[in-house]
């Protein structure tokens, strides 16, 4: 089950209202695109979903339960994984270790068992490695498995972030500008990949994106934010023709 419900969420930074009563839902199995001009509050909302920002009003529930009392590291446990807009990889680790680190919530081993290499820890480690190998295969990372992340091309690092997030077996995947910095072909590939994730892994996806083409192509539904409020919500076609959306993006005519 995966059902995310954002209910009249308010976030303030000092005197500035970054989110002003935003409400929408992300039902199971859907790909929902979140768009809006710069400063509309998209990333703020994402950071609320990861529990990195405090919410000042309203509620966010996942499968009927409020997430606002949970610490950030519990989000993967309830099934919410994410990637970051500006890449937040572990820069001194190899590609493989980055992915393995993503498997943290899907494993248990503690300090003592790991230090002593007890059978349980070894089994778990083997299981994590197998899973990481499969994900690297799936996301075309096998060739760079043992390389450090610093030297990798941008597109590869973006795929690595997705692989790392998938290691914890999320039900809901939050993608923060996955197309940022990608070239045309890479964006095409990404669009296919996002559909593939939903279809093959039964993932629900919430996507923040500047790249209109990608959002319109992959989303089942699009939510438009502007100045901290929800401006519109609907299918990509409805959004494309929505007068207020056109105005927000292109400015008032005449």
């Amino acid at each position: 089950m995966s059902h995310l419900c954002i209910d009249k969420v308010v976030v303030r930074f000092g005197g500035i209202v970054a989110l002003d009563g935003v409400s929408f839902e992300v039902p199971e199995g859907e790909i929902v695109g979140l768009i809006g001009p710069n400063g509309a509050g998209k990333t703020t909302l994402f950071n609320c979903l990861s529990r990195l920002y405090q919410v000042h009003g309203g509620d966010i529930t996942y499968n009927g339960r409020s997430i606002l009392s949970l610490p950030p590291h519990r989000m993967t446990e309830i099934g919410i994984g994410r990637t970051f807009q500006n890449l937040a990889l572990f820069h001194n680790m190899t590609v493989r270790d980055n992915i393995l680190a993503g498997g943290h919530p899907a494993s248990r081993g503690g300090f003592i068992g790991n230090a002593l290499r007890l059978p349980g820890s070894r089994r778990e480690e083997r299981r994590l490695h197998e899973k990481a190998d499969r994900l690297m295969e799936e996301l075309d990372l096998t060739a760079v498995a043992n390389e450090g992340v610093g030297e990798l091309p941008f597109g590869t690092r973006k795929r690595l972030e997705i692989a790392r997030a998938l290691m914890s077996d999320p039900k809901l995947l939050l993608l923060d500008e996955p197309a940022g910095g990608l070239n045309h072909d890479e964006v095409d590939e990404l669009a296919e990949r996002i559909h593939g994730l939903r279809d093959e892994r039964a993932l629900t996806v919430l996507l923040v994106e500047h790249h209109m083409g990608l959002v319109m192509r992959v989303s089942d539904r699009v939510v438009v934010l502007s100045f901290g409020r929800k401006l519109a919500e609907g299918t990509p076609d409805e959004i494309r023709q929505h007068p207020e959306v056109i105005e927000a993006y292109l400015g008032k005519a005449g």
Partner: protein
Amino acid sequence: MTATTKPWKRYLLHLRSAVPALCLLAALIAPFVLEGFTLYQLTKVAVYAMAILGLNLLTGYNGQFSLGHSAFYAVGAYVTAILMTTSGFTPYLAIPIAGLAAGLAGYLFGLPALRLEPLYLALATFGLAVATPQLLKSSHLEDLTGGVQGISLTRPEAPFGLPLNSDQWWYLVSLAVLVCMLWLARNLIDSRSGRAMIAIRDNPIAAAAGGIDVAGYKTATFAVSALLTGIAGGLSAVVVELVAPDSFTFNLAILFLIGSVVGGVASISGAVFGGAFVLFVPNLSEDVSKGLAGAVYGVFIIGVIFFMPQGLAGFAQKLKARLEK
């Protein structure tokens, strides 16, 4: 390997995987060919290496700074000495208990400290290092700690009638403890726990978003680090046969830090290099120039940092990589 590989290079290549084993063999032979003071110094290298290993786990792998590890070393040493002299404990029991006591101290100190930014954490631990010798001397604790005099103890001879003198025996005990610690630390770093520690160092926000309990791991790492350093302190009490407040000043914390950085802060084997460096290089500096020993030591440190930014262990790694090319 191509046919053009030079014979000497091929020879070295064969040798390289045997290096750790050869080192261990040399370390095992050492007590039977070296004597007295040299052996005592090697024992101290092993003890310092344990403390530095504790610091490496904390700083190198988890990104937390400590200028206060002399305090945990002191806890280990004093608990061992007190248990042995007042309650008649054998050191084989007293040292592990002392290690746990230091680990607990580290855990309790880590709880509030982990909320601090790196610079403030460094300062807080510095406070701990400065306070420790004073506390140990304090008249309120004098009955327990022996005040300024400290506590002298006697180390037991080798058990089971082994044909070893006490210097040889305690050298071998220290070596065995160090080897165990290096093995445990290696396992830890290569596991889920180690990856979590490193992830927190590299990017705490991404680590938390990836399901890692940042606060929990930081405190646990602080405790493990203090535990290793506390065991080192306990062994040092037995080896030196004396604990006194002025052996645990801020200078000792700096000594560990130098050993950690010079050896290679994010490395396991670096702790051994670091332990050897802080023990032998000051003496070496004195041989170079009596009057300028401090300056020569400083030049050595700057030299290592300048020419081997990953420390001695990193330098050794690079040599190995070059050989394998």
